């Protein structure tokens, strides 16, 4: 007699718990954004900060052309975020150029060509790569990769955007691989059968039919990888050299947005302009990811739904 009552109550409690868990992600995200933005807000009313100082070249030394310089602790603080944005783009660019082809090619192999037994080995092993802590990748880049690459290419800077980018590529290949692989395998088998029936080879089928059909998913994979690369901190902090240099050379030392927050948060005076600036860097990282995931991610989901409807 008591049993049905107990079950329904358990039901309700569990339902409530699941709802709370489901909503917590959304709430945390909103709270984060509000909190970070609030901490960065004082910049708007700070006389030491202006759009020009943040984004346009400024006079740094007498007799020198204006330049973008990040040196927030100084008699005259220089707060241009341009070197940091360039740094983030350089490292992320190198990482994406390496990780995208490798990740996608590996996914095509695993989904379209690999015998099932081999696939059952490849997929978990590559996904295991994603579990390597970034500090370990950073340490590897710092101690091993940097010296090896320097002796190969004779770069003046041992730690630079390429070293950090290569290590970062190791971190994002598994992401690109896993998501792409899932997208390829979600393409209906009938597509492949139709292609084979028309006499196409396996390669033609994979390249011309399956990959285009999975394109939105692949794009989603790249966006996820990009997001991870832009925000990743430990690898760049350890392997990029952290000099905020404005240049086009990838073999120059470089300082990223995320590494700047990590390196400088310990030294800021609470409530100072410098603190707000670091939060502003955080807002930029946050917004880049939000916008990318919101636009490209939404577009990709839309494409997938349309394809299913057709």
């Amino acid at each position, binding site marked *: 007699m008591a049993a049905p009552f107990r079950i329904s109550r358990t039901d309700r409690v569990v339902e409530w718990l699941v709802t709370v868990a489901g909503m917590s992600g959304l709430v945390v995200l909103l709270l984060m954004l509000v909190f970070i933005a609030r901490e960065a807000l004082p910049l708007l009313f700070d006389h030491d900060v202006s759009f020009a100082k943040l984004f346009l070249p400024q006079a*740094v*030394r007498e007799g020198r052309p204006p330049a973008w*310089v*990040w*040196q927030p*602790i*100084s*008699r005259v603080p*220089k707060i241009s975020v341009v*070197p940091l944005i360039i740094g983030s783009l350089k490292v992320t660019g190198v990482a994406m150029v390496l990780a995208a082809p490798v990740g996608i090619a590996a996914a095509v192999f695993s989904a379209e060509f690999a015998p099932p037994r081999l696939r059952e080995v490849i997929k978990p092993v590559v996904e295991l790569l994603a579990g390597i802590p970034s500090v370990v990748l950073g340490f590897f880049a710092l101690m091993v990769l940097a*010296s090896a690459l320097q002796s190969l290419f004779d770069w*003046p*800077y*041992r*730690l630079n955007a390429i070293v950090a980018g290569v290590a970062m590529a190791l971190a994002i290949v598994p992401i690109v691989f896993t998501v792409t692989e899932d997208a390829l395998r979600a393409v209906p088998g009938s597509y492949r059968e139709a292609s084979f029936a028309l006499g196409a080879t396996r390669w033609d089928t994979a390249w011309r039919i399956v990959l285009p059909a999975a394109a939105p998913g692949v794009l989603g994979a790249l966006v996820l990888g990009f997001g991870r690369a832009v925000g990743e901190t430990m690898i760049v902090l350890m392997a990029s*050299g*952290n*000099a*905020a*240099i*404005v240049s086009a050379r990838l073999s120059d*030392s470089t300082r990223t947005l995320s590494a700047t927050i990590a*390196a*400088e948060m*310990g*030294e800021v*005076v609470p409530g100072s302009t410098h603190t707000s600036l670091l939060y502003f860097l955080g807002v930029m990282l946050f917004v880049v990811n939000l916008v990318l995931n919101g636009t490209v991610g939404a577009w990709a989901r839309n494409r997938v739904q349309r394809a299913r409807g057709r």
Partner: protein
Amino acid sequence: MLLAVLAAPAAAGTITIKGSDTLVGLSQRWARAFSRKHPDITVQITGGGSGTGLAALESGATDIATSSHPLGEEEQARLAAKLGHAPIVVPVVRDSVAFFVNAKNPVRALSLEQLRDVLLGDVARWSAFGGPDRQIITYTRESTSGTYGFVKERVLHDEDFASTLQPLEGTGAVVNAVSHEPWAMGFGGTAFARNVRVLAVRIGDEEVLPTSENVMSGKYPLSRQLYFYVPVHPSADTAAFLEFVRSPEGQAIADRAGFLPLQ
């Protein structure tokens, strides 16, 4: 708030020391010797830079802040406002700041003006100093470091380091990088020099190395005192530790670690 609670000074029987990375190794040696005499007292030591130590002293998170520079007026005012009084400044040891190059580098000495040119980014290649035509790769420290502040003040006359300099965590990391890269240069406490060449500073026609004689006589220009900062009313344990550090025994330990005793 939570952080402040978590970081509150440890209970009686322990002394926490935080700050200058230059002093971490020496403080550990002092602490080991001190703990042998006072087995009931534990000493906990962390680095982070002189600025970090002062911030911890300000928030009450440490008993002793170590620093490689004397308190500025602004810092003194801020601490006084927070603690109700300015902290006691205790010089504990002398050291000198040396410029390091790789052992393969043929350059032996640079003048202060030449060092300044390199750190400001005005001179970028070793060929300017009679070395090979290779780029000078310069390492520096993060801006919390007292050593960074010292070089900025004494060599750069408060101008800014060039943005091509790569900041590293700790003098040990700088020495390690310079020892592995043939055309690198860095700076830090002379006591840290291992497997690198210490550059002499050229003054007039003379090349002055940071030997103990040259530092004690004031001939080597880049020497400084290192300090402990403590609140006006330190605990009995902290006071005992300070006394030990300044005793002949404590100063002898500093001497063995490559630092110079106070006069």
